[in-house]
């Protein structure tokens, strides 16, 4: 079989197009990782266990301390990574007139859901926030331009903006973690800096009630999977298709 130069070049060109096309289709069709894939960090929360120590804020204090979260005097300017929100606010679609008194008006821990399909990542115009292969939604505080589009896009209110310089409001200052500047967005990072050292997230480690369980959702033998197997759990606004990685036991 003989090939003239023209046919050969044509075939090369077509193959290159096919390869590029396949890559493009594959990147569009990427599904969230499933069993046997890479690690997928997630959290399971037991709100009723949490209520047994109502008034305890150990996890919040530990997170704020670990991440230099400022305590601003005005509510409008507050920055939060993990905090308590009344059950009805966290789960507006679950609350009813007859919601168990056990939960009605009671505080529930909320923070970034580290979604499989995070709208915040989709809208960011500078890729200053992105999703890691292990599911953690990250922030680059040096790239963020402070447009707050991600805050508008987050259906959980999990993101905070630094309306003023946060540094005067950080007590005590930790030298282990960067502080932020005014004009950038921040949120929970699932303690990726501690995970890198093989430690559990600060909130999980600080809780004496074992309210928070952290682990690999892709590992069928993990503690989080065991909890999800044995008890019924709900997620915040699942109908939006964001696929949160934070579960609440009921």
């Amino acid at each position: 079989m003989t090939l003239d130069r023209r046919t050969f070049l044509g075939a090369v060109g077509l193959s290159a197009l096919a390869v590029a096309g396949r890559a493009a289709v594959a990147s569009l069709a990427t599904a969230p990782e499933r069993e046997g894939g890479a690690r997928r960090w997630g959290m399971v929360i037991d709100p009723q266990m949490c209520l047994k120590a109502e008034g305890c804020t150990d996890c919040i204090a530990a997170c704020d301390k670990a991440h230099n979260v400022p305590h601003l005097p005005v509510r409008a300017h507050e920055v939060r990574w993990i905090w308590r929100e009344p059950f009805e606010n966290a789960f507006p679609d679950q609350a009813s007139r007859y919601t168990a008194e056990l939960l009605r008006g009671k505080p529930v821990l909320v923070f970034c859901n580290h979604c499989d399909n995070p709208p915040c990542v989709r809208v960011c115009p500078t890729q200053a926030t992105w999703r890691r292969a292990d599911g953690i939604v990250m922030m680059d505080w040096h790239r963020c331009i402070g447009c707050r589009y991600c805050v508008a896009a987050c259906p959980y209110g999990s993101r905070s903006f630094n309306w003023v310089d946060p540094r005067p409001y950080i007590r005590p200052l930790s030298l282990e973690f960067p502080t932020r500047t005014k004009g950038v967005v921040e949120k929970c990072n699932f303690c990726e800096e501690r995970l890198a050292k093989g430690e559990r997230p600060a909130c999980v480690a600080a809780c004496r009630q074992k309210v928070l369980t952290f682990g690999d959702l892709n590992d069928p033998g993990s503690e989080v999977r065991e909890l999800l197997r044995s008890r019924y759990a709900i997620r915040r606004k699942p109908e939006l298709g964001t696929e949160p990685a934070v579960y609440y036991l009921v």
Partner: protein
Amino acid sequence: MFMFEKAVVGSRRYWAWIGVLLAVILTGGLCYLRQLQVGLGITGLSRDVMWGLYIAQFTFLVGVAASAVMVVLPYYLHDWKAFGRITVLGEFLAISAVSMCGLFIFVDMGQPMRVLNVLLYPTPTSMMFWDMVSLTGYLLLNAVIALVTLTAEEKGVAPPGWIRPVIILSIPWAISIHTVTAFLYSGLPGRSFWLTALLAPRFLASAFSSGPALLILLTMAMRRLTGFDAGREATEKLSLIVTYAMLINVFFVLVEVFTVFYSRIPEHMAHFEFLFVGLHGHAPLAVWMWTSVVLAAGSLALLLTPRFRSNEKTLALACGMVFLSLWIDKGLGLIVGGFVPSPLGHVTSYVPTAPEIGITLAIWAVGLLMITVFYKIALSVREGLAG
């Protein structure tokens, strides 16, 4: 450079007006320096109401910019000769409005010195990236078109042939800028006030009403101040466009209200309730929103009556009402209303602060200064031809 010499000769009144605008710009500039130093905390914005006056002005002005297509399309595609004298005015209005949009986005940034990161890390999944692309393109298109056509007019020759495809391109481009701006909001899960496919059509209808209304008012002011006459026919045709677009806009709003309140989905109703009657005792915008409704109804009553529409005084009144009504609707209610209640159900009032209003006024003054200078140039060219 681009006939700017024509803008530096003018009457005492002209210079007094320029002086007033510069004073407003200077005041706002000082407010901005303060914002740069302290942060966006000097505004009335909060962790619940993330965007306010700045982004709302941006949204409204994208509409004004897009509305230039309402004179460009009839003139270039349908050969409506009546618009011959005002087409370039529409394009200059678009240039000024897009420039204001850029400034409003800029002052809203938490880290303005990093704004070029949008170019450094282009992100096609972000509607903000596409908004930047479409607005920049639209600014360039209109700048080239206005420069080329006006230069040809000054020389008394026909514009070069290559400009026609550029002008034709500017027509769908104008539609695109406001569509993409609507997509900024209408694609966000969990913001039910904006989560409607009707948002982009609604944006376009309100733009094609408020923009030509402003153009009518500007040409009227020019006739009074300078003797430039846009022509009776042009005004009549523009007023028809304002009327139809306003009707379609009101129809769209009513369609939205039906869907929201007949379905009775609480999450969707809450935003309208906050705007018009208030929630949990917070009703900062109710007075404004009802004013907008009354102005819209009143303007339509005037515009739909041929006698009032053809009378210059009542037409001016109607155009003023249309502009103000839609400014309240888009420049106040639409953005703030989308943030309250928050995804966590919090109801937070938003009231702009004095420095925030100062910065906003300064950007409007920049826009007015641009319009003044551009229109002065355009008029001088025409007076030169007549004289």
